C-alpha cells in the first residue's frame, strides 16, 4: 500500500450498532443483535474501498450507519478530520458530501415523481432554486447517459433497471458529494448492464473526483472496482488491506474461504481451497472469542477464548486472526520477529 495522502477523507472509528429485540408484554428489551460491532476503517481521497462478506454480516448496516440513516450505538465518523454531527460539521452539510446508491433501483425512486423531480429534490433541500435544480438534474441525466428530453419527464416504472440505477446515481451526484456509497448498487442488474454501469461509475469517479465505498457480495466485481478491500464477518472487520493483498495473500481463514468460493477460470489452477460451508452463526448470540471459530479450519482453544485484535500483517494490510498475530498462543502464530 502506497501512502497516497496523510489525512484520510473519511474515518470511521469503533462504529457499533445494537438492535434490541423487544420481548415481553411491555416491550422490555431482551436480547440484542450486534449487527455492527466495533468497525473502524478509513477512506482515502480518490480510492474505492470494497466491503465484502456474507449476507447478514453487517455490510449494509455499516453503509446505513455511515449515511446516518440509523443512529449508531457507539462510534464516531469524521469527514476530513471533523466529527459528523458536531458544530463544525452539521449532519446536513455532511450528507451533501456523502451520498448513497441503494440496491433496489425501483424502491429507491418515488413512483409518483418524475425522474427530474427525483434528482432535483436533493439540491432544492439544500437551498438551490427549483429551476437551477432542474437544470442540474437534466445535466446529470445527460452525464449518466440518459437523454434528458426523453427521460426527464418519465416515471420510474417506465424505465428499465439499468436506466433506473443510472437515475439513482444521478440523484446521488446531484448534491455534488465527495463520497459515494454503493450498497449492492449493481447486484440486481444483468451482467451486461452491470458492466456498463460499473464503467459509468469509474468515469464519474474520475470526472468528479469521487471516492467510493463499494459494497457487494460479488467478489470479482469488488476486485475490479476496489483499491482496498474490507472483509466483514458477523459485524466485525475480519481483514482489511490492498485489493491484491487480500485476493492473493489473505491472512484470515475466512477471507481465504471466501476467495475459495470464487470459481476458477483457469483449468490448470482449479479452485483448491475448500469453500466455506454452513450459515453464519446467529448474531443474537455470537460465538465467544473469534466469531469465526465455529466454522474455521484453523480453530484452536485460544480462538474461542479471546477475540483476536486487528493486527497489521503488512503495508496497510491487517487481519483479525490469532494465526496471524504474534504471541497469540495459536500454534500457527508467527514468531515475535514477524
Amino acid at each position: 500500500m502506497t501512502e497516497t495522502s496523510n489525512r484520510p477523507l473519511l474515518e470511521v472509528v469503533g462504529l457499533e450498532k445494537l438492535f434490541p429485540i423487544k420481548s415481553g408484554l411491555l416491550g422490555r428489551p431482551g436480547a440484542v443483535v450486534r449487527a455492527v460491532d466495533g468497525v473502524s476503517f478509513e477512506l482515502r481521497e480518490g480510492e474505492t474501498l470494497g466491503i465484502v462478506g456474507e449476507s447478514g454480516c453487517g455490510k449494509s448496516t455499516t453503509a446505513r450507519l455511515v449515511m446516518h440513516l440509523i443512529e449508531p450505538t457507539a462510534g464516531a465518523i469524521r469527514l476530513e478530520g471533523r466529527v459528523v454531527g458536531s458544530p463544525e460539521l452539521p449532519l446536513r452539510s455532511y450528507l451533501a458530501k456523502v451520498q448513497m446508491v441503494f440496491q433496489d433501483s425501483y424502491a429507491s425512486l418515488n413512483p409518483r415523481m418524475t425522474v427530474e423531480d427525483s434528482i432535483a429534490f436533493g439540491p432544492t433541500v439544500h437551498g438551490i432554486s427549483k429551476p437551477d435544480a432542474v437544470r442540474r438534474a437534466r445535466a446529470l441525466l445527460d452525464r449518466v447517459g440518459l437523454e434528458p428530453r426523453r427521460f426527464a419527464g418519465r416515471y420510474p416504472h417506465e424505465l428499465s433497471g439499468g436506466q433506473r440505477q443510472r437515475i439513482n446515481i444521478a440523484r446521488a451526484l446531484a448534491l455534488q458529494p465527495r463520497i459515494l456509497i454503493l450498497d449492492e448498487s449493481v447486484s440486481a442488474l444483468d451482467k451486461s448492464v452491470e458492466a456498463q454501469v460499473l464503467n459509468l461509475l469509474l468515469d464519474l469517479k474520475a470526472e468528479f473526483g469521487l471516492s467510493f465505498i463499494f459494497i457487494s457480495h460479488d467478489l470479482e466485481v469488488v476486485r475490479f472496482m476496489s483499491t482496498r478491500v474490507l472483509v466483514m464477518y458477523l459485524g466485525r472487520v475480519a481483514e482489511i488491506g490492498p485489493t491484491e493483498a487480500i485476493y492473493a495473500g489473505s491472512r484470515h481463514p475466512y477471507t481465504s474461504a471466501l476467495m475459495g468460493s470464487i470459481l476458477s477460470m483457469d483449468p490448470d489452477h482449479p479452485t483448491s481451497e475448500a469453500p466455506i460451508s454452513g450459515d453464519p452463526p446467529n448474531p443474537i448470540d455470537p460465538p465467544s472469542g473469534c466469531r469465526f471459530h465455529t466454522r474455521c479450519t484453523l480453530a484452536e482453544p485460544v480462538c474461542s477464548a479471546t477475540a483476536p485484535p486487528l493486527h497489521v500483517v503488512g503495508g496497510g494490510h491487517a487481519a483479525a486472526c490469532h494465526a496471524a498475530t504474534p504471541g497469540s498462543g495459536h500454534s500457527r502464530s508467527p514468531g515475535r520477529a514477524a
Partner: protein
Amino acid sequence: MMLGRVEPKILEPLERSPGYWSTVWRRFRRDPVAMGALVVIVLLVLMALLAPYLAPHDPYKGMALRRLRPPGTDGYPLGTDELGRDMLSRLIHGARLSLVMGVTPVLLALVFGSVIGVSAGYFGGWLNTVLMRTIDVLFAFPSVLLAIALSGALGAGTFNALVSLTVVFIPPIARVAESVTTAVRTRDFVEAARASGAPALTIIRKHVLSNVLGPIFVYGMSLVAVSMILASGLSFLGLGVKPPEPEWGLMLNTLRTAMYTQPLLCALPGLMIFITSISFNLLTDGLRSAMDIKA
C-alpha cells in the same frame, strides 16, 4: 461548478409521461359501473345544489287536506307526507342535508385522521404508541353506539351530529393512514430523501403524502355511505337533524307511522339513501381498482 456546462439540448421541451392520476382516470373511465356511479353522484350533487329551482313545491309547506297521498297523485308525482308536504320537493331538498351529513364528517375525519395516522406512521416509536393506542380506545366502541353516545351527550342538532360523526370516523382513517405510511416510510426512496438531508416535514410533504393520500382518500370515500346511513340513523333517533328540516333519515323516521297505509311512500327516503350509498360504494370500488396499477 462541475455541472456548469449546460448544453442547449438539456433545455429542450420534454417528452412528458402522463402522471399517475391521469392514468388512474383513464382506467377509471373504462369501468362502466364506476362511471355510472359517478354520474349518479354528480346528478345527486346537482340536485342538491339546484334544489330551489328543481323542487315543484315548498318543502316546508303542508296542506292538512292532502296528507299521505300516494305517489302518482295529480300535482304531487311522489305523493305527500304525513303533514301534506310534497314528497318530491322534500326528497330534492333532503339531498342537501343528507349529502352534507355524509360528506362533511368524512372530510373532517380525513384531515384529522391523516394528520394523526401519518405522524404516527412516519415517526413511529413512542409517538406511534401514544397516538395509536388512543385511537384503539375509540375503536373499542361500536361506531353506531359511539355516534349515538356522543350525539346524546352533545345534544341533538345538525352541528353536534357532524361533530360526533367526525369523531367516529377519525379512528378508522387514522389506522389506515398509519398502516400505509408505515409501509411507505421503509421504502428506499424515503431513505434516499433522508440521506439528502431533507427535514422530516419536507419528506412527508414531497415523498410520503403523494404515496399515501390516494389510498387514504379512497378509504374515506367508502365511509361516505356509512356516514350517510349513520347520520340518517341519528336523525331517525331524533339526535341529528330536527324537524321540519327535510333530511332523508328524518323523513324515514316521521313517515314510519304510515308504514301500513302508504308503504311505497315510506320507502322513498330509504330508496334515496340506498341509491346514494351504493353509488359511493361502487365509485370507491372503481377508484380502488383503477388505482391498483401494476408497474
